């Protein structure tokens, strides 16, 4: 069967600036780099098609990182810090806060409809959040990116970074439509992919398994290529578990903030205000609002709702329409049941845990210019660590910050050689799953096994998100075994081959996640990271970052600790 691998067509490309992922971070990076220097050669790699890829495929109905009137970058920083239990990279969050309104102005200039009040101000939905009508946000960003004349390579799955000693000098990938192997040599590389969904068993099963909140097509490739290349990663243990509308797992902001619906339990009690005032009532941190909701269910007062029964029929229909900009399935959900939000208030539940730096803060350990610990490798958006609650506008801001640094450095970066042996090895690693084997495991089977292990032993939905050392040690053991099984993954076509690599990538993310969860011996972020064996928050010993570096040759994950610095100290 050596034949098949020998027949793979190899396409070699060269660029100055390689961007992996054509989402908010990647597209804004391309825009900013071309604005600063139109002569720079930029290539964007995209797994799907730039017009409708990733989290933004369906659209957005709000921009959630925005400095609203009366707020400032300083107050935004304070808010994010409080919401994240004081452990954040203040320098990164502050630099994002200074940039987000600039991003929103650009989006509006490119065509994003942002409704305005009589004073010409956007409608403020909640602290740091404004309403937009963003069903078309991704095509709008794509169009602006195309206008810069950056080159876009759609339907290419990234498989690994190319390294020459400690320097990153490009990336490998394969085309899901053309079946080619791509070798892309670059002076600087920006990883700007999405985070990772599908690591844990989701809320729904069978035909509904992808009715999940975060894009099921964001499968952690951006993390995995960094992990395998030995880049330092941070705070994977701050998983993101989201409070969402049951069944469709739709975001709740439009209901909770948009139409001011209160969280109520089955008895109609406004439990946040009535029972959990000591946690801050309605202004408690995001994680605690979900914790309180789960607690109501445990104590027999579920289900919980976002109470929309105060809406008029017209308001209810407007709310339905509002979801067409983000989760059109929810509009259909009410429609198919013949109900509307005023008579059928949405139930709220917790999602499965996701690993995502845009909401929580798992990701590459980066400096203020978004450079990782590997030379010439940068990260922005969902894969960049240390800066939670950045969302669309913050991801775009990070892309722009990284682009500025890269543009200023490009001249001084020498082209590094790509070794033929590395190309040969990667072709074999990537395409060997197309060859017949004695044992053949399908990617779907391996995915289910991985999700079950993580659900059972690493704090998934069915274990109430609770973690302890004994269970985590089992998760470590089983995931390690599963990584061996992954060698037997079998694909019949390039689409299935993509799915093989998605599950391989997620196993690498899961391995790092487990080590982070094991190391933090306190409970910093309830639900996101609830250690039953260390139930208290311990600022004395643990107000610091847990980081890791993977050594591929030894197959070992080394844990490092980094201090948490105040902004003044960083300045």
């Amino acid at each position, binding site marked *: 069967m050596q034949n098949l691998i020998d027949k793979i067509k190899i396409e070699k*490309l060269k660029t100055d600036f390689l961007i992996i992922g054509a989402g908010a971070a990647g597209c804004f990076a391309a825009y900013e780099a071309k604005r600063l220097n139109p002569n720079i050669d930029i*290539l964007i790699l995209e797994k*799907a*098609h730039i*017009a*409708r*890829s990733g989290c933004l*495929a*369906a659209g957005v109905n709000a921009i959630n990182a925005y400095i609203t009137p009366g707020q400032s970058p300083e107050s935004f920083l304070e808010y994010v810090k409080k919401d994240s239990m004081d452990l954040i990279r203040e320098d990164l969050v502050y630099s994002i806060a200074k940039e987000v309104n600039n991003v929103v102005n650009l989006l*509006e*200039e*490119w*065509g*994003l*409809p*942002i409704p305005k009040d009589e004073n010409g101000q956007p409608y403020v939905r909640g602290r740091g959040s404004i309403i937009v*009508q963003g*069903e*078309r946000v991704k*095509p*709008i960003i794509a*169009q602006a990116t195309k*206008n810069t004349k950056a*080159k*876009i*390579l*759609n*339907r*290419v799955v990234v498989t690994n970074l190319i390294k020459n000693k400690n320097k990153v000098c490009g990336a490998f990938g394969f*085309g*899901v439509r*053309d079946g080619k192997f791509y070798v892309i040599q670059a002076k600087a590389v920006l990883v700007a992919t999405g985070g990772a969904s599908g690591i844990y068993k989701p809320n*729904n*099963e*069978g*035909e*509904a*398994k*992808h*009715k*999940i909140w975060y*894009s*099921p*097509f964001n499968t952690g490739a951006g993390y995995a290529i960094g992990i395998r290349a030995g880049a330092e990663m941070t705070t994977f243990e701050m998983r993101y578990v989201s409070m969402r509308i049951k*069944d*469709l797992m739709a975001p709740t902001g439009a209901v909770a903030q948009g139409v001011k619906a209160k969280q109520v339990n089955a008895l109609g009690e406004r439990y946040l205000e009535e029972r959990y005032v000591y946690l801050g009532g309605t202004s408690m941190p995001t994680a605690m609002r979900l914790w309180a909701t789960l607690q109501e269910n445990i104590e027999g007062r579920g289900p919980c709702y976002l109470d929309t029964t105060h809406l008029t029929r017209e308001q209810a229909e407007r709310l*339905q*329409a509002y979801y*067409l*900009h983000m989760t*059109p*399935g929810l*509009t*259909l*959900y009410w*429609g*198919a*049941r*013949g109900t509307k939000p005023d008579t059928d208030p949405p139930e709220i539940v917790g999602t499965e845990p996701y690993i995502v730096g845009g909401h929580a803060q798992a990701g590459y350990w980066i400096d203020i210019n978004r450079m990782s610990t590997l030379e010439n490798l940068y990260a922005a958006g969902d894969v960049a660590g240390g800066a939670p609650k950045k969302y669309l506008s913050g991801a775009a801001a990070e892309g722009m910050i990284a682009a500025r640094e890269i543009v200023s450095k490009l001249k001084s970066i020498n082209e590094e050689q790509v070794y033929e042996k590395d190309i040969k090895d990667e072709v074999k690693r990537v395409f060997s799953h197309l060859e017949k084997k004695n044992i053949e495991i399908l990617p779907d089977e391996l995915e289910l096994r991985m999700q079950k292990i993580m659900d059972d032993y690493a704090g998934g939905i069915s274990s109430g998100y609770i973690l302890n050392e004994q269970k985590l040690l089992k998760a470590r053991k089983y995931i390690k075994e599963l990584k061996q099984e992954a060698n037997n993954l079998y694909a019949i076509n390039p*689409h299935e081959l993509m799915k093989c690599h998605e599950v391989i990538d997620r196993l690498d993310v899961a391995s790092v996640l487990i080590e982070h969860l094991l190391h933090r011996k306190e409970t910093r972020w309830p639900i996101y990271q609830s250690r039953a064996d260390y139930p208290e928050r311990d600022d004395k010993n643990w107000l610091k970052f847990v980081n890791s570096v993977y050594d591929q040759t030894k197959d070992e994950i080394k844990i490092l600790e980094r201090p948490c610095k105040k902004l003044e100290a960083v300045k």
Partner: protein
Amino acid sequence: MGIYIDQNLCNSCGYPQSETPCNMACPGDLIFMQLNGKAQITSNAECWDCAACIKICPQQAIDIRLPFEIVGKEGTLKARAYREKTIWTVKDEKGNEQIFETPARNDASLETLINPEEFSDTIDSYKGISKSFVDLGLDI
């Protein structure tokens, strides 16, 4: 399930000479062309309900149907994407319709962007046009 592609309405959009809009739009690479030239979804269980394909299909051959296990009712969602707006039709199982209209682009941008090539996300840009496979890297 996720989407239903009406095999009688699908007219192949010029395939195999061009990439079809639905095939281009799906963020999960889930839509493929069958030997008879008609579009089909590989696995409905993997559909995210993002609606990218239903909005762009020039034949309006695609609709979203939610899995029975989470709704317990049948119902369909259709949509048409125009440059400035999207028109949505929700139908319950008795056939009762609800129509919604959502803005797609703000007025200022519509005035400045006049090249139809720039609107590859809308139905009107595909009518009668056979696009070539520009997005497979040939533009490099």
